[in-house]
């Protein structure tokens, strides 16, 4: 789930990138615009100042000598401009921008100026007037614009995020409700899901489709279950007939040795078939919740009783049983189911054991662990599936562990399989 993102994040990312590009492009645009307005205004301003200076000097009506002195004095005391006599007039005014060090500052302090050089006529003499006005440096303008733009960008992104979050909380609520219901849905309980009504068309459509799908699934599941139950019921009678025919046939006095070998060879698969059928029926019954009644059961007692029933099979294979039943636990559940669970685990440990093997039964901390000698580990994922470990050479029905699992599911117990030091180990945590 590392690379998983929620819908909100997915939506926010491209929006943010797009907004970033737009804002980034806006920075030079604003700069050019501001700069253009700035220069236009400054040039106009410089021109006005030049006209005023020209007028002021002309209105003094002073002599040429005095004028030269006045101009020199004026040039000296102010920094706005400079008047210089020329012989020839320029064809055109000149405007440009320069950058220079501030004379009065000790540190490096570059200022930017807008310059106007224009022709003025004072007392019929030709002069050039140079006007310079301090303006904001380009980089400063860009920086200010960038800062403001960034600020707005941040406001926008945060706004997106907050809005999105609020909207999605509200908009996606029906979706989340649906999801919750789906998560809690369990086919085996056969309880259909009813989704909340919503006024959002897409979600309503989704709910309706899901409802249909679930109803269909439940119906198929039920059909399949009924089929299995009916099929195994129907098989009971022919199996009973076969079994009774076998019993009758055995009574025949003229059976040859060869025939009797065939007979006992038929008994094996017949017993296996009976077993499979019985277990299928049992599974169907557990699924149909036909073992609903509960009582208080002392588990240790039941473990000992079950072991007692299996003594013959254990000693026939010369298996050593080590018991460690430290726990005293009373469970409230169906007795038949618990009996089946425990005996299936034990039977499994006997059938899949080796001659002179071992079975360890440990019951402590609410956990029953049954382990037996074995050779190779089994597939943990498949081991509880129906018929997954079925093989013709062993006596299993391929359903024993599936039944154990089903019973565990019913009561919310945890079952675990592991293989260590040549021991298969099944543990049920009650």
């Amino acid at each position, binding site marked *: 789930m590392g690379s998983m993102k929620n819908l909100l994040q997915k939506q926010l990312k491209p929006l943010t990138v797009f907004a970033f590009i737009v804002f980034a492009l806006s920075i030079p645009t604003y700069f050019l615009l501001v700069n253009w307005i700035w220069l236009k205004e400054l040039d106009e301003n410089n021109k006005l100042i030049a006209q005023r200076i020209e007028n002021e000097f002309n209105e003094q009506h002073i002599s040429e000598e005095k004028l030269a002195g006045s101009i020199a004095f004026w040039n000296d005391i102010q920094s706005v401009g400079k008047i210089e006599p020329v012989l020839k007039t320029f064809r055109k005014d000149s405007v440009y921008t320069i950058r220079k060090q501030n004379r009065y500052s000790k540190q490096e302090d570059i200022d930017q100026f807008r310059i106007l050089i224009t022709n003025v006529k004072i007392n019929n003499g030709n002069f050039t007037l140079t006007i310079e006005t301090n303006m904001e440096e380009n980089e400063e303008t860009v920086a200010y614009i960038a800062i403001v733009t960034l600020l707005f960008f941040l406001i926008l992104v945060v706004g997106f995020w907050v809005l999105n979050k609020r909207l999605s909380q509200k908009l996606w609520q029906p979706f989340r409700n649906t999801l919750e219901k789906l998560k809690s849905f369990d086919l085996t309980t056969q309880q259909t899901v009813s989704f909340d009504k919503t006024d959002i068309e897409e979600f309503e459509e989704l709910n309706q489709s899901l409802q249909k799908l679930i109803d269909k699934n439940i119906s198929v599941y039920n059909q399949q279950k009924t089929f299995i139950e009916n099929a195994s*019921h129907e098989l*009971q*009678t022919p*199996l*009973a*007939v*076969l*079994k*009774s*025919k*076998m*019993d*009758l046939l*055995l*009574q025949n006095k003229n*059976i040859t*040795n060869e025939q*009797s*070998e065939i*007979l*006992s060879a038929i*008994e*094996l698969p017949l*017993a*296996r078939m*009976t*077993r499979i059928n*019985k277990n299928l*029926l049992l599974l169907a*019954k557990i699924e149909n919740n*036909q*073992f609903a009644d509960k009582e208080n059961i002392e588990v240790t007692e039941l473990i000992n009783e079950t072991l007692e*029933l*299996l003594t*013959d*099979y254990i*000693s*026939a294979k010369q298996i050593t049983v080590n018991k460690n039943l430290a726990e005293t636990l009373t469970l409230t559940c169906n007795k*038949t189911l618990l009996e089946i669970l425990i*005996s*299936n685990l034990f*039977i499994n440990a*006997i*059938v899949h054991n080796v001659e002179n093997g071992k079975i360890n039964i440990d019951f402590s901390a609410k956990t029953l662990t049954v382990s037996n000698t074995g050779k190779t580990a089994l597939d943990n994922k498949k081991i509880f599936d129906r018929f997954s470990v079925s093989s013709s050479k062993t*006596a299993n*029905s391929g359903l*024993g562990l599936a039944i154990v699992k089903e019973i565990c599911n019913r009561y919310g117990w945890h079952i675990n399989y592991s293989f260590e030091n040549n021991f298969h180990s099944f543990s049920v945590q009650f």
Partner: protein
Amino acid sequence: MKILIVEDEKELAQDMEKYLSGENYVCEVAADFKQASEKISIYDYDCILLDLMLPNGSGLDLLELLKQQKKQDGVIIISAKNSIEDKVKGLQIGADDYLAKPFHLSELSARIHSLIRRKQFTGSNIIQQNEITIDLLGKTVKVNNLEINLTKKELDLLLFFIGNKNRVLSKGALAEHLSGDIADMFDNHDFIYAHIKNLKKKLTDAGYGNYIKTIYGTGYKWEV
């Protein structure tokens, strides 16, 4: 001894009839609810083998009928449904035993034997078989008045054999009788051999004839 077999599966009814007929039993068959209720009302049986799922009715209703008529017939339910509710209900209404299909005919025979013995029980419950005397209440076995010590399983086996005289009993049937449903889960019932060997030895040591015969490949037989 009269036995009524209430079973709609013809083959199965025939097999039961055939197997039981050799044991001093007279068997009648009823294939549906109507036939069965008629026979039950008219005659008395020592034992009724009752299938629960019948054409036009349920075996449980027949049980009710027996109860209403205050009949003392012994009833063994034989059912393919093998549901606990049916079993509990049947036993509550008055059935004496419950046997789930599919079953071994030998098991059925042993159950009938035991049921009839219980029904006829008057004061003492003793089985006499040739030189052997079994006191079921005291759980003691005597051969020629000499008490022998049998384990519970050996006694079970002995009673099973006596309930199936002159019948070949497969190892599977013997194992099922001893271990019940659990025997279904195993293919190998060789442990039977050890129990029978011990039983044979204890009986012959006490001077009992060698009545338990091994039948090649299939099982054992109590021959008298």
